[in-house]
């Protein structure tokens, strides 16, 4: 029955379409500029997924349009199609092959997840306090140093953000870092990131937190370790953020000295 179908030509068309879609889509930098060690790994996973998805999409398109072209009823043709009820081999194939593909994707994702969350030996720990609709950052040292609305981190050193929320759930996202984690009232959550490009970025709240949600942003500066140390020194005189008083200090991160950049 299926010997009547031009299987080879259909597969060739699928592969050709896959190649075209991939060639157009893979070079585009969908996620924008990357600025952490996690970014290239996640972007690479995305590229692999684009190719696999392009294949699945092409297969569906080729199967659909070939059928529409070949088996469209002639005007006035009121007869029925051939009474084919199924094909066990085909059905087994389109159960097993997708299973293998998604399990491959799962394994690959798992590996990437472990890579990007691997803890370095001497990470810098920064406390992040989120409240409606502002961010504050605490740098542990002999005294807590506080910065409101501006986050500075050294380049090429792993940073562990300890996230706290004062009122409702907020979410910590710097798109260039590809890392996101919710700050949850009553919990301390952790986001791990190793920034690897000096520059200025934006921290975006991505969990709906009220009418000011869209404007809950903070400036993020990634700078060389020496400049970073200078900046932290300069913070000491600043008044602590008001919300500090009502949130317990996180014993897990306190006190970890602000060491020199790099591990």
């Amino acid at each position, binding site marked *: 029955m299926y010997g009547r179908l031009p299987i080879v030509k259909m597969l060739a068309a699928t592969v050709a379409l896959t190649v075209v879609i991939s060639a157009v889509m893979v070079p585009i930098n969908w996620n924008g500029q990357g600025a952490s060690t996690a970014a290239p790994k996640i972007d690479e996973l995305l590229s692999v*997924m684009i190719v696999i998805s392009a294949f699945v999409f092409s297969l569906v398109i080729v199967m659909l349009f070939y059928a529409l072209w070949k088996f469209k009823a002639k005007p006035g043709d009121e007869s029925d199609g051939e009474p084919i009820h199924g094909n066990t081999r085909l059905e087994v194939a389109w159960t097993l092959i997708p299973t293998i593909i998604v399990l491959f994707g799962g394994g690959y994702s798992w590996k990437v997840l472990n890579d990007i969350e691997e803890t370095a030996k001497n990470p810098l720990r920064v406390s992040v306090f989120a409240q409606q609709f502002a961010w504050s950052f605490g740098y542990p040292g002999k005294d807590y140093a506080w910065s409101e609305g501006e986050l500075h981190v050294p380049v090429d050193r792993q940073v562990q953000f300890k996230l706290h929320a004062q009122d409702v759930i907020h979410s910590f996202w710097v798109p260039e870092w590809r890392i996101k984690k919710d700050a949850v009232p009553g919990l301390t959550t952790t986001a791990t990131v190793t920034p690897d490009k000096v520059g200025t970025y934006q921290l975006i709240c991505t969990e709906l937190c009220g009418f000011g949600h869209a404007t809950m942003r903070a400036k993020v500066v990634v700078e060389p370790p020496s400049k970073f140390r200078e900046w932290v020194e300069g913070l000491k005189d600043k008044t602590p953020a008001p919300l500090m008083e009502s949130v317990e200090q996180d014993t897990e991160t306190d006190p970890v000295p602000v060491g020199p950049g790099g591990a």
Partner: protein
Amino acid sequence: MVAAIKRPGWIRGAVGALAAGAFGFALVIALRAISDLPIYQTEQTGYPHVVVPLILAPLGFLAGFGCFDYWLRWAAGMPTIPEDHSQHGAKSWKDYFRFNTDHKVIGIQYVVTTFFFFFIGGLMAMLIRAELAQPGTQVVDAATFNSLFSTHAVLMIFVFVIPVFAGLANYVLPLMIGAPDMAFPRLNALSFWMLPLAGLLFIGSFLAPGGAFDTGWTGYAPLSTGAPLGQSFFNLGVQFAGASSIATALNFLVTIITMRAPGMTFWRMPLLVWANLSTSLLVVAATPFIAGVQFMVLFDRVLSTNFFEFAGGGDVISYQHIFWFYSHPAVYIMMLPGFGIISEVISTHARKPIFGYRLMALALIGIVVLSYSVWAHHMFVAGMFSWLRVPMMITTLLIAVPTGIKIFSWLGTLYFGKIHTYSTAMLFALAFIVTFTIGGISGVMLGMVPIDIHVSDTYFIVAHIHFVLFGGSVFTIFAGVYHWFPKMTGRMYDEKLGRVHFWGTLVGTWGTFIPMHWVGMDGMPRRVADYATQFGEWNLLISVCAFFLGACQLVFLYNMIVSWRFGPKADANPWRANSIEWQVSSPPPIYNFDEIPRVVGGPYEFGVPGARHAIMAGEGAEVPESKPSVVGSST
């Protein structure tokens, strides 16, 4: 006047609502007064003197309207009004505004009511896109914007997509299995009448002090536990929509299990029946979770319980676990009935038996089982236990397998068929395969934890859900409405206008929702009234396409209304389909069948010489029982 108040109907319903609301109000005031509390508690999460009447007034309306008359009379030892079926059928349009126990009337009531909410929700979407056409705030302020997208989502999910499937199935499912009605007709009518009440509560929240609920359809605690009064309207609306949904699902389960015509074995049921069986299994087990969690939020708000208040010992994350334990299965509640519709439409218009019928049915059951084990993929960045992410990722990816089986089997059905594309239903069904594949692909990407970490809570999510819910579910709804329009109204719709609607909707859907993927990955978060100027041009394009998409729905509305009134009379079986509902007149007689049909074969035996699905009354018994077709055979 007195007679009008005694008779079930709108006047008695209004009196009931007023009386019950006033009773609730007085109860709260009295209890507070004797407890030496301030008479009115108007903390934004409080307002017991509003919340209690809001619970009671809808129940008072239902009682006054006549939903409980039979049961109450029986319980009170009064003579019950015998079920003479005088209320069956609809002789004029007025009959659709009465308590009616006929599944065909209820089906139409459902579809029309839900489409009413679809257009209200759609108008809100237009406002949302108007605001987002440019960066900055121009049309509405940020708080109103939050209310708009929250109400838009809630209307679309709870009073459009979920119940419109219940409505379509209400109409055709009993006919398909050869039953004279649903198993519990009075419960069926009650289920319907709870629905507009839920919709009114959602929309009515705009009148509440502090504005409509603005915490998204997800209503995450503690944002929702501290939100203004409008949130309580949401908590209560979900109860009515949920109760309606659960009662209907029970009704479907009992109907499908006990009321199939002789010979209608499980493996002879059309896939639409299988799909509603699967959906109902999801609804009865999952919907109580969202009902419960919204009660917990309401109790936190009004009774000062501390389920989700961490300061009082509550756990914030547990809201999300309970919520998604319903709301992930809910996406299959919103999709599986659509799968059923697509199977009916494609098989009929390709003149071919469904490819791999049994695997198609088993894939539905596979989705039901798997869908209970994937909920935490909505919480990869929520701060839950990190070990839970990988198992949830694997189950999430595996759910693509049964879904893929369905896609490939529909494609397989087309092969060696005689594909007719004159019907708008078939066009929507074919387009659904492609758009849903894209929604499925982005779903697989979202299932992968590292990608999800980057794109969760961005416009990529908005793109994905609209591709699966609009490009998926709503396309199947359109396919279903066009397919059964002749059966339900007895008239044909205009295929030319149908084509305009189809092509406009297809282009509008892709134009609106494809670029949303891009801006999301590039850094635009969801649920924001204002955004970075770099996304301005894409958003303008998205808004223009969204307005176009919205305008195309007016073509649909016009086509439906005018065709229903003036369309040419429909034959019993304009699509030359096999299933039983097409073997009776359009619209079907009041009791569906003079004599229950006898089922003698599978539902999709196109091209099988001499094969029959069912023998109708008056055809005699000379047609032999056909041999069951051998599934999986090929030559």
